[in-house]
Every structure is written in C-alpha cells, then in structure tokens.
C-alpha cells in the first residue's frame, strides 16, 4: 500500500535519474564514436582503462574540486554574514532582501557574459579603469591564476544570495525567546551567536554545503561561457570535458565514462563527508 503511494514519485525519479544513469553505465562499456559510425560497439573496459590514464581528466577533477571547495566556502561565509544582517530589524530591510536575490534570478549565461565583458582586454570597463592607474594591460582572462579567480568571483556573486536565503530561513526558525532567555542568563549578544545561533543553524549550513557542493562540482554553463575552459584548459571542469568529448570529439562512449566517473567521485566524496559529519555529531537533528 505504502509502496503504491510512492509509485508516481519513484517512476518520476526512475525516468529522469535512474534510467539515464543506467544508460551512461551501459554506454561507458561501448565504443560509440565516428570511428564506429556512431554505433555502439562493446569494447570491454577500454574506456575505463583509458580514463585511469587520462591526465586531462584527473587534472580537470582536481581543478573542479578546488573551484567547488573555494567557491562554496566563500559563499557560506558571505551568506552567513548577509543572513545575519537580514535577520535583524532595520528600515529598508525588505527592499534589500529583494535586491539581494537579483544575482541569483539572473540566468547564468547572461551573468557569465557580463563578467566576461567586464574583464575583457582591452575593451572591458576594468581595463578602462586600469588605464588611469597606468599599470599596463591586465589581461585577466589570459592568465590562468586570474582567470580561475574570475570564475570563483562570478560563482560567488551569483549563488551567495541563494545560500543567504536558505540560512535566513534557518535563522527564522530559531525562536526569539531563546535569545531573551540567553540574555537573562547573563549572555551578551555576541556570545549568543556562538552558543545559540550557530549550533541551531548548523543543519541548514550542512544542507547548503551538500547542495552547493554537488552543484559547483557539476559546473558547466558558467565555465563554458566565461572562459571556455581556458586559458590552456586551466579552468576546464569535469562536466565541460565530458561535453567536449561528446560534442566536439564525437566520442559518446568515452564522454559517458567521464561523466559517470565524475558522478562517482562526487557521491563518494559526499558520502565520506556525511559520515564524518555524523561522527562529529554536528548533524544531530534539532527541532526547536
């Protein structure tokens, strides 16, 4: 009976998630490229063996992890500050709340184009400003280090509002009486942050971490539009690499392998993280 009620949801998940994954798995054990006339031909584990040895894939995996880690870390810190600010009562808070969400509402491609233009050499506004300083052309989008930073800045700019909103929702579940009680116990407001706010907000922080971590690891559109993976592949992500394999090199079998490998890396990282969190006791269910 219970299973019957779940059936529509299960069907839906099966259709959009499980089935494609199975297809990927199947495809990853086939050669399916221009060489086979785009027909799937079983090739044993050749794709996987190739992947293990593929410098470019592992380089991309490293780059993507670094990108995701730094972006999400920065986003969490910034979002926490913003959420704490928006949770206070002050005039004009409603307007600022609405404004703060704007970057998130903007389509990623438009946003990425915007950033690309800002950092364009020699026509972008940043270079124009730089002319007054007189340091010579910055060439931000042709230096690997700077380009990487630009992708992080763009991602932080876009998704911090989302996390802030999530944390704000979490903050608002904390009963105000707790803060009153804490003050009467002799605690100053700054101590309440550590003793009440942060522990009670922790489940929301972890949810944000998992959501955004997974999302950032799968980053595609931002990189594709902003840098195209360059310069010299220094900002290429796993998803972009898989995409290139399929759409540029027309090697669907290997593309599926790279995609699936990325997915497996991500899920195992998440599982390990979740286990560590459980062990550390931070994830204890708290219902105020």
């Amino acid at each position, binding site marked *: 009976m219970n299973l019957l009620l779940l059936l529509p949801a299960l069907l839906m998940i099966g259709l959009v998630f499980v089935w494609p994954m199975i297809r990927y798995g199947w495809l990853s054990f086939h050669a399916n490229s221009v060489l086979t006339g785009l027909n799937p031909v079983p090739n044993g584990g050749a794709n996987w063996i190739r992947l293990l040895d593929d410098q470019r894939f592992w380089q991309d995996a490293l780059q993507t992890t670094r990108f995701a880690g730094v972006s999400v870390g920065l986003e969490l810190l910034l979002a926490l500050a913003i959420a704490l600010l928006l949770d206070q009562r002050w005039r004009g808070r409603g307007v600022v709340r609405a404004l703060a969400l704007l970057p998130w509402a903007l389509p990623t491609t438009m946003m990425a184009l915007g950033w690309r233009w800002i950092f364009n050499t020699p026509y972008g506004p940043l270079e124009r400003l730089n002319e007054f300083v007189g340091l010579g052309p910055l060439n931000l989008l042709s230096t690997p280090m700077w380009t990487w930073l630009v992708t992080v800045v763009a991602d932080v700019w876009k998704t911090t509002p989302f996390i802030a909103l999530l944390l704000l929702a979490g903050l608002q579940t904390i009963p105000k009486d707790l803060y*009153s009680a804490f*003050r*009467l*116990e002799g605690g100053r407001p700054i101590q309440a942050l550590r003793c009440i706010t942060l522990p009670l907000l922790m489940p929301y922080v972890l949810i944000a971490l998992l959501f955004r971590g997974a999302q950032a690891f799968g980053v595609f559109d931002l990189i594709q539009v902003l840098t195209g993976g360059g310069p010299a592949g220094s900002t290429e992500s796993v998803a972009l690499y898989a995409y290139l394999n399929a759409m540029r090199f027309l090697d669907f079998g290997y593309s599926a392998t790279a995609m699936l490998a990325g997915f497996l890396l991500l899920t195992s990282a998440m599982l390990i993280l979740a286990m560590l969190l459980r062990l550390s006791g931070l994830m204890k269910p708290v219902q105020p």
Partner: protein
Amino acid sequence: MLHLNGLGKRFGEQWILRDLNMQVDEGECVALLGTSGCGKSTALRLIAGLDRQDEGSIELDGEPLDSIPAERRRIAMVFQSYALFPHLSVRENLNLGLKIRGVSPAQRQQRIETVLDTVRLREMADRRPQQLSGGQRQRVALARALLRDPRVYLLDEPMSNLDAQLRDDLRPELRQLILQGTQPVLYVTHDQQEAMALANRIAVLKDGRIEQIGTPEELYKTPASQFVASFIGRPQINLLPVDKQLTIGIRPEDVGFDPEGMPCRLISREWQGASQLLLLDSPRGALRMLCAGDLSLSEPLHVSWLTSAEHRFDAGSGHRLAE
C-alpha cells in the same frame, strides 16, 4: 522590593501598556491577571530589560534599573514557551548560564546536581528538551531560574502549556520552590483560579491598564468594576441591568431558595458533585445559581438574595458605585 512607576510602552502609535504603578515586596507574589493580548508579557519584558519602556521607571530595592542592560539585571524569567535551548541536554541547559557568569566548574557541578534533585530531574539530566514531557520541561525552566539566584522572579504563564490535572499537581511544587523565597515574584496568568491560589495580591489588567489591585479576597468581595467582578470568582457573577444608570452584580453562590422570592424556570443544570450550577430564567433575566449537589428540585423555583450581597455598578462606565 520591586517598584513600577507609571510604566508605559507603545508599539508605533498604539499604547500597549499605560500608567502601570505597582509595588512587589520581598517574598510577595503578585499575579498579573488579564485576557490574552492585554500586555502582561510586555510588562515582564520591560522589567527584565528585554524591551525598553517609553515612559515611567523601574526600581529594585530603591535603585533604578532603567540604565542596566538585561544581562546584568539579575532577574530570572520563566517563559511561556520555557525557552529551553533545544540543542543542549538538561544538564547543559542549566550549565550554560553558570558558565557564562564565570562560576567555577566544581561549583557549577555541585549546584546543578543540587537543583536537579530539587526539581526531581536527575534521571532526565542527559535528555534533550524535546524528549521531555511538558511538566518536566517546566521544571527545567524553573531549575534554570533558581540557578540564576535572581533578585526578582518573573513567571510568564508557566502553567499554560500544561493540562488541568498537572497544573493542580504542580502548584504546591511551584509554591515551595519559588514562592517561599525572599525575592519579589511577579506571576502572569490568565487563569483567575491560579492567581487566587498562588498570589498574595492580584493586579487585574485591562487594555494595558491596571483595573484593580488587591488581595484575592478584596477583589472577590469588592470588585472595582464589572470587568473585575466577572473575571474573579467562578461560576461567573450575574450582571443584571436595572435601568440606564445601574447594573446589579450578584454571585451565583449568594443566590438562595426562598418561597417568597422570584419565581423562575429551570433551563439547565450542571452537576458538579458537591454543588450544582443552575441556569434559571428569572423575571430579571438569565440567572446562574449555585446550590448543594444533593438537592432535588421541583418547579416552580423561587429564589432571592440579600441586598447586602449585591454589587452595584454604574451601567455606563462599569465602575463600582459607592455603598
């Protein structure tokens, strides 16, 4: 001794509390009694320093509190919601405040163990608040207040989340734990029975002002207005309009059978064991009457009351008229 001088608070243009004057002596318990939304919690928050009053002042033992922040007033409050920290165990809940106030670990431990025994929660010490029953949570809140070693206790409807049975059970406990201390106690409730049972004096609040303040007996015997009269005493007083100027109040327990009295029709009866409450249709309107539980009734009923038992109110303002 807690002294409130003309305390007032407004939100925007609207005054929630106005002209609150009151004194609570050492060891005295004053109940703040009033309907929902009349400003009871607001009054406590002002005293605790959690909100700032818009007029008037608060003094404790002759010293003005107004410029002292809440965290340094040394006032304990039991919240309507108990406000226990959900992420901490009972023991940690009690420990937090002591730690913040710089009590040494050894002393903390000893005081917590003592208070856990006092409120009989030793077995529950490692549970989280959501694993406790309502009554147990309330005792944790009381224990936390006791550990504060406060100069004043403020209790905001500490019983309102409990069922009737538990309230009766906990009343003696509350009296023993808190009301026997030497500190002034302000006890907020909307339950007149609770106020009568626990408080030395009762302040009846209406629309943010004190309607009357006095001992339970004074409020029962000489209510200053129709509002107080119908708030204090159960079953509720009968209010019988006489003319445009005068309304008579007569308590159901003061109405008696009398062959010479008004003839009445019995509409309904509530049997309460030792007594029964009759609802009568009298020539002067609907009338509640209390009589012995074992009385058998035969219509027509004739009832009357002593003129001396009547309360006389101004029909317009509702104020009590001079005898």
